[in-house]
């Protein structure tokens, strides 16, 4: 179960765990990513994880496929008509 806690609450709680400004935190993440790049056994997934966590906290990606968004993009006349009812 993913649980009922809102994503915004999760982000705020995790962000509060770092007593740094956004600029300092960004620099810290970038140093960690550089350190991972220097470590031989760490592969692409490890660096991708750290990058995604950095962005999740500081510059979250936008949802593109929300149902509301899909509805907006729906073309006129694309409704399904049930025959014989």
């Amino acid at each position, binding site marked *: *179960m*993913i*649980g*009922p*806690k*809102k*994503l*915004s609450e*999760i*982000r705020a*709680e*995790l962000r509060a*765990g*770092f007593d740094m400004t956004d600029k300092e935190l960004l620099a810290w993440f970038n140093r*960690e990513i550089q350190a*991972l790049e220097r470590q031989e056994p*760490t*592969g692409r*997934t*490890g660096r991708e*994880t*750290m990058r*995604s*966590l950095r*962005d*999740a*906290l500081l510059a*979250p*990606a*936008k*949802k*593109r*496929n*929300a*149902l*509301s*968004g899909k509805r907006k993009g729906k073309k006129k006349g694309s409704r399904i008509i049930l025959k014989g009812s």
Partner: protein
Amino acid sequence: MGFVGRVEYQHAYSRSGGAQYGLAVTPERDLLTVYAEAFERDADPEEFSLEAIIAHERGHQVLARHPRLARIVPAMMSGVTEEILASLVGSLLVGTEKDRQDLLLKAWEQASRLAMPGEQALAWLTHLREMLGRLL
């Protein structure tokens, strides 16, 4: 997402956050129950998408059913540990950066419940996800 088994929709609200995985005797009988709030969350641009919610549940199934993972992952682990692993596996299955970020945040939040400092939790999650990525 690759879920194997039965999928049910319940037009009801649960405390699950949107979906729940049920382990059965065989994979074909496993049950994924999706609740009404999954669609409400999906419609909110600031919330988990339906894909992320289902990927997390598929993560539970992979942990239970994947031949290599099922051998390595201990049968008796805490609920928190299982939720962390399910989110990490889910983050490897999703197709968008937004869903990946959201599932990683969920795993991180769960790891913080283990009284692990934020920086240590990050290093642990990074290592764990790397290992899962190699196994899957």
